[in-house]
């Protein structure tokens, strides 16, 4: 884990200036629906960022900076949805909150289509990121500052004037990340029918088969977004190592009598997010329909012998279809168990493929980034280059990245060989997960005190031994965490996978997404439950690794 993004004060202004420039630039361009698209895009981004930051920051403080019972388990539980692909997340929420969903009696038609459900779903999906980034930001606030302030004023005031103020960088970074993910995402806006710039670009490309007009590319917008992300990453990568080690020594605020109400609040939040999702999945996986005949004595049948339906001629000019059978929907545990078992048995190829490609992409990325990041400990310019690369990769929408790879690799020779194999998919996934893996590796490796490395150097004679006896052992834990996390993220990645997977192979995320769009909710639920079970196991492994990492270099 270990994603923490610190923003220097000027980066905040970079963001503000960037967004203002984006507004001005786009308004000045001549695309016919610029205002509508811009309005929707900004409303979605700001609405999501505001909602997730308000709730997420509060939860982050509770989880990371208070003496809340079982905070470690809560963190894992609330961060877990990061690994559930967004389209599945959105599809399942829609089937719950939409008309005739499980909670339709409470929500009415509010969550059917439009900006409200889009913002709400994006907010829920973004919460884990906000909790993680802001929470780790809270952990790095200087304990000395807080303790000094506590001598002068109340804890609540200290939280506001010291803790929150020192965490502004993380809060803005989290907001920026949420806005980036929201503005470049299209599956959720498609589901809830919100028209944004990103969707317009894909629609244009898919329907016209040509590159969209320049204003639609929103180049200044993406450029500024990339610059803002680069600024954030540069801030992170250049932070002094001692700042990271503070994470394990931070001061915890006591909740006193609010301890148990906080637990209740967290329980309700977790139930609201994960519990509801699990309920939907379990409900869907056990649902089946049963055919029962109904009597229709007044109709004239012309096709009755061969079909479920008959043709009726009450108005002879207009044949209409009327059912002679009805299908009763029912839920049973047998259906649920059977669906899950069938899914497990029949989709084994899909599981192995996704696991292998995800692992290979993760291994490739870790293998490439690990030496660069070690090098970056000694050379500052490496962090600048990494920031530019990773910021750019974060800001590029997945389908655009996939199209660029298709254009580059669809050639003869070696490139063609890669294009026609899983190599192209592994490469695409590696690009997608690189920023996350980079942060997963950078921060723990920065936390290693220099004196430990220097002490180790006295016992080795050459560089090869240094790699073998110092760098590799010290990298093992962060690398394995990055590997596991990267594999899990790759298995759920959709936007690049859907375009790059070679014929004959269907990765898990594409399989689930297709089933979701085909209305096979039973199959989606079974696969998603299996996937959650698998990710839960990975999460447990990560948790065990994190416990090992908790105080790795205590002196």
């Amino acid at each position, binding site marked *: 884990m270990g994603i923490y993004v610190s923003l220097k004060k000027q980066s905040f202004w970079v963001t503000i200036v960037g967004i203002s420039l984006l507004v001005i630039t786009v308004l000045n361009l001549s695309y016919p629906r610029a205002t509508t698209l811009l309005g929707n895009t900004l409303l979605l981004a700001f609405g999501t960022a505001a909602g997730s930051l308000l709730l997420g920051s509060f939860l982050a403080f509770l989880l990371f900076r208070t003496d809340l019972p079982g905070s470690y388990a809560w963190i894992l539980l609330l961060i877990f949805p990061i690994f559930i692909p967004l389209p599945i997340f959105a599809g399942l929420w829609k089937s719950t909150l939409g008309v005739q969903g499980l909670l339709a009696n409470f929500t009415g038609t509010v969550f059917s289509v439009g900006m409200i459900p889009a913002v709400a779903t994006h907010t829920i999906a973004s919460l884990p990121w906000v909790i993680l980034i802001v929470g780790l930001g809270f952990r790095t606030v200087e304990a000395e500052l807080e303790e000094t302030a506590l001598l002068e004023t109340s804890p609540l005031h200290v939280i506001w004037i010291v803790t929150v103020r020192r965490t502004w960088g993380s809060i803005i970074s989290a907001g920026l990340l949420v806005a980036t993910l929201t503005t470049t995402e299209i599956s959720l806006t498609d589901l809830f029918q919100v028209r944004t710039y990103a969707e317009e670009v894909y629609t244009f490309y898919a329907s016209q088969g040509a590159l969209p007009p320049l204003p639609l590319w929103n180049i200044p917008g993406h450029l500024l977004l990339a610059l803002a992300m680069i600024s954030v990453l540069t801030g992170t990568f250049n932070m002094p190592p001692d700042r990271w080690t503070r994470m394990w020594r931070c001061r915890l605020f006591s909740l006193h009598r609010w301890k148990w109400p906080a637990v209740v609040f967290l329980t309700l939040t977790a139930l609201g997010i994960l519990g509801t999702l699990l309920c939907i999945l379990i409900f869907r996986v056990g649902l089946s329909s049963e055919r029962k005949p109904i009597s229709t004595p007044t109709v004239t049948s012309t096709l009755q012998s061969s079909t479920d339906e008959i043709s009726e001629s009450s108005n002879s000019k207009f044949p209409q*279809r009327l059912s002679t059978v009805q*299908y009763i929907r029912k839920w049973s545990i047998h259906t649920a168990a059977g669906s899950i078992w069938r899914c497990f048995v029949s989709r084994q190829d899909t599981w192995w493929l996704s696991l*292998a490609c995800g692992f290979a992409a993760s291994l490739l990325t870790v293998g490439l980034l690990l030496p660069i990041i070690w090098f970056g400990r000694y050379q500052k310019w490496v962090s600048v280059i990494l920031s530019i690369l990773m910021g750019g990769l974060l800001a590029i929408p997945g389908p655009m990245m996939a199209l660029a790879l298709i254009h580059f690799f669809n050639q003869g020779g070696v490139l063609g060989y890669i294009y026609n194999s899983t190599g192209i998919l592994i490469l695409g996934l590696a690009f997608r997960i690189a920023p996350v893996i980079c942060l997963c590796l950078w921060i723990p490796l920065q936390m290693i005190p220099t004196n430990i490395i220097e002490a180790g150097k006295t016992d080795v004679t050459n560089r090869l031994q240094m790699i073998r006896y110092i760098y590799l052992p010290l990298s093992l834990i962060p690398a394995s965490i990055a590997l596991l996390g990267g594999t899990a993220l790759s298995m759920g990645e959709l936007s690049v996978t859907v375009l790059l997977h070679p014929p004959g192979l269907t990765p898990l995320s594409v399989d689930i997404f297709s089933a979701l769009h085909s209305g096979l909710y039973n199959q989606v639920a079974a696969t998603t439950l299996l996937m959650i079970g698998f990710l839960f196991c990975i999460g447990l492994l990560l948790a065990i690794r994190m416990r090992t990492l908790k105080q790795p270099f205590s002196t």
Partner: protein
Amino acid sequence: MNAQHLSHLFFLFSFTVIGCGNNQPVVVVYTALDREFSQPILERFTQKTGIQVLAKYDVESTKTVGLARQILVERNHPRCDVFWNNEIIHTLRLQQEGVLSPCFSKSGMSYPESFRSKDSTWYGFAARARVLLVNHDRVARKEWPRHLGDLTDKKWKGQIGIAKPLFGTTATQAVCLFAQLGEQEAKRFYLELRNNQVQILSGNKQVAQSVGTGELSLGLTDTDDALVTLREGYPVTIIYPDSSPTQPGTLFIPNTVARIRSCPHPKSAQQLIDYLLSPEVETALAQGASGQIPLNPSVNVSPSVETPSNIAAMTVDFEQAALLWNPVQTFLKQEFTAPIPD
């Protein structure tokens, strides 16, 4: 063996075992027909011929650049052998782009001439109809629409759903309506539909499901999606619009199959095309859950939906309709991709 050795083994496995094939003959097919319907057919082909089918399926949404688009992108180095489209217009567009290769099929010759190209670049088979699906719990029978034109009635404001008209059979229907009704009349219909606050969903499946669950009162969709919704137990009824003898007729859209020019496995492609056009496949598609309508006169099965022999079918020159693609798309994109907010 430590963790590092295991990692190395897994790495090698990832790059070799998965990436490598065997000596079995293969054919690469891009298919836009839903996987649940097309996969069993392709598996049967493998069982019969021993040719391994490497299929790439489309997803029913606008998020992907469609298979036809990918074939165009790959035209200089094609990896696809056979394009099995679930509609016809995109196949014709590929033909116009010169991406398809003539492929004489014996079994294809038994289809009516209107469903195969003159130069043997494509063949049509197993059609679906564009129908209206009504939620009969929400709409009383006497109010059911009979014609597409009824959808512009103000009483349906905000209650009708269609898939995004830039893709799939909804786009095909739009092009066919422009060809059939003329530009002015077709534009008027679509503008009135838009003004009636038609809900634009991501696919025909979503339209059928929204009608089934009662989110919408009625929707324009395909027979296969309508049948699935009906069989799932939702309170829906299928209506064939404009299907009386005095009216323009219901639109029937065939599947199409074509071989890609300079494809890597032309012989296997030929065999697959022959198989897909065989009576066996049409029979399977007709009797399957998608209830597709056989076009081959020699196929003698009772379809589970109406066929052009029972009701009036729209007469369309698909090749002429395909020429209208770009102007129709421009119009629809302007009117439907970013509707003006209320």
